[in-house]
């Protein structure tokens, strides 16, 4: 069910909101995609779900995207939906004990709306922006075929920080080609799941990645600091059954941890 676009509550916008049920990004795909991914629940357009994009697309194979739904408080699930894309749902996240915030990079096939839908109970709150881009990040072979370091596939570089709000921040980069199967003679080969847990394996955040995620997936997440330890664990699995694991120590608090935070 579609209900009106909701901005942060103020009388003026509340009146305006009653006059439209239209997709604020005016996308021809939205009716179908919202049925496919969000059906059976209420859908509300809401500015508290932010999609932050770069001012220009430098590289269609590595477009940095920030999803920030922290203004909603705790959410059950986040879906990213990219309307005009061969893989329109690049990432799904359950922030079990984590903030509803994720930064990742993806391949982009053409200019498109990029949206995040954050679910609280039976309501999807949807925010988004239009990303301008040239074509071909998914389907055109790069001029220089990336050399795959097969020996080190799945190696994880990662670092954690203790945030000023008492939570943790973890940034990670997994060595993986993330081949989407659209380039001739290169079969699909990509990481499907990635979980961040505490030392005992209790999940803090669960992510489903897809063919759309950029090579060498690079993510930023904001998990809670586990009660039972000073480490975060990362476990990822690709569609060939490759398991990749990492242990990331959480350091003591450092000064200046508020600066530059979104």
């Amino acid at each position, binding site marked *: 069910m579609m209900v009106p676009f909701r901005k942060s509550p103020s009388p003026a916008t509340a009146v305006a909101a009653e006059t439209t049920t239209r997709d604020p990004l005016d996308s021809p795909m939205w009716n179908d995609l919202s049925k496919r991914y969000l059906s059976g629940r209420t859908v509300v357009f809401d500015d508290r779900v932010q999609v*932050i*994009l*770069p*001012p*220009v697309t*430098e*590289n269609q194979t*590595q477009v*940095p*995207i*920030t999803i920030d739904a922290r203004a909603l408080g705790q959410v059950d699930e986040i879906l990213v939906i990219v309307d005009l894309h061969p893989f329109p749902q690049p990432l799904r996240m359950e922030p079990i004990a984590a903030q509803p915030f994720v*930064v990742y*990079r993806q391949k982009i096939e053409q200019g498109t709306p990029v949206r995040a839908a954050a679910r609280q109970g039976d309501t999807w709150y949807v925010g988004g922006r239009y990303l301008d881009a*040239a074509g071909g990040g998914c389907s055109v072979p790069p*001029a*220089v075929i990336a050399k795959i370091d097969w020996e080190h596939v799945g*190696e*994880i*570089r*990662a*670092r954690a*920080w203790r945030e000023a709000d008492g939570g943790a*921040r973890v*940034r*990670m*980069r997994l060595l993986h080609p993330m081949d989407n199967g659209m380039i001739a003679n290169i079969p699909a080969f990509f990481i499907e799941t990635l979980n961040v847990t505490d030392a005992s394996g209790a999940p803090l955040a669960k992510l489903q990645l897809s063919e759309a995620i950029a090579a*060498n997936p*690079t993510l*930023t997440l904001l998990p809670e600091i586990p009660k039972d330890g000073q480490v975060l664990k*990362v476990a990822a699995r690709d569609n060939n059954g490759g398991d*990749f*694991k*990492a*242990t*990331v120590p959480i350091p003591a608090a*450092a000064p*200046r*941890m508020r*600066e*530059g*935070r*979104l």
Partner: protein
Amino acid sequence: MTSTTAGSLMSGINRREWLALGLAAATLPVIPGAAEAAVLKYALNPVVIAPGVWTIYGLPEPITAKNGGAIANITIFDTSEGTVLIDAGPSHRYGEALKAKAVELTGKPVVRVYLTHYHTDHVLGATAFDSGTVSAGKTLTADLKTIGNDLTNAMYRVAGDWMRGTDVPQPGREVSEGVEAVGNRSFRLMPLAGHTSEDLCLYEESTGLLFPGDLVFLDRAATTPDAKIDTWRSSLERLKGIGHKLLVPGHGPVEPGARGIEQTQRWLDTIEAQIGDGFERGLDITELMAVPLPDWTNGIAVAKYEYARSVMHLMPGLEATRLPQTDRA
């Protein structure tokens, strides 16, 4: 459309949608760009910078469909043996206009076009000139072969109809380190690097003019899509030692002294430090882009935009090398 048809259409859709359709219909005959199509013409205004030498200043802007990519400085030399150009501009159309303007100024045909580096705003006008006169370093020529099509595609997309007729230039004359005389002028050629894989710098000995290509930006933020910052720094050190009279940056005003070299160094130091610092504090790309630049950059055109691009260019390298390797257990 008869009133009956209009009436039956109206009954099927509500008033708001009708208005939207009406507006869309009203704008249909105005094809984007069509209004300018008849008048797309580069206004080239050469400025004398030395006897018999003119520079056409580029605009301190990003490449847009409005400016047609005319953002780089292009220089015209009158020599006793013909006209020499340093860089050729962003499109075939620009190249044609440049050729006409150069011949008008000097009364002599263009006998040589030096290309400094492969970025579109400097090289794509070269197709307007006889390939035997178009001179470039070995690496630049090779790079144009491999990525030239991507470069023209990107330019067609961004600048639109300005690009009509533009193709990938094929320099017919290879240059390397050394001195080349053209009539009464003598060009010292130095293939350096750092801004791109090859940045051909020229020093003209009779006038003391130094052309560092895009190794030097002045009052316009430097671009880094293909940069190797450390190499760029060493190239700037070498340029400082030449002892030029006037410096003609790839972008920005022609000046005596080394302000352009120093400002480019400071810009590179500033963005590299800011990006490195943000990385150490755990910021991802979009967060780091939002961090304000220091006040000294206030007078520099497109600083915020180029800084945001540089974050995208430089962060992946830091992540690949400076994020710690983890234990697998």
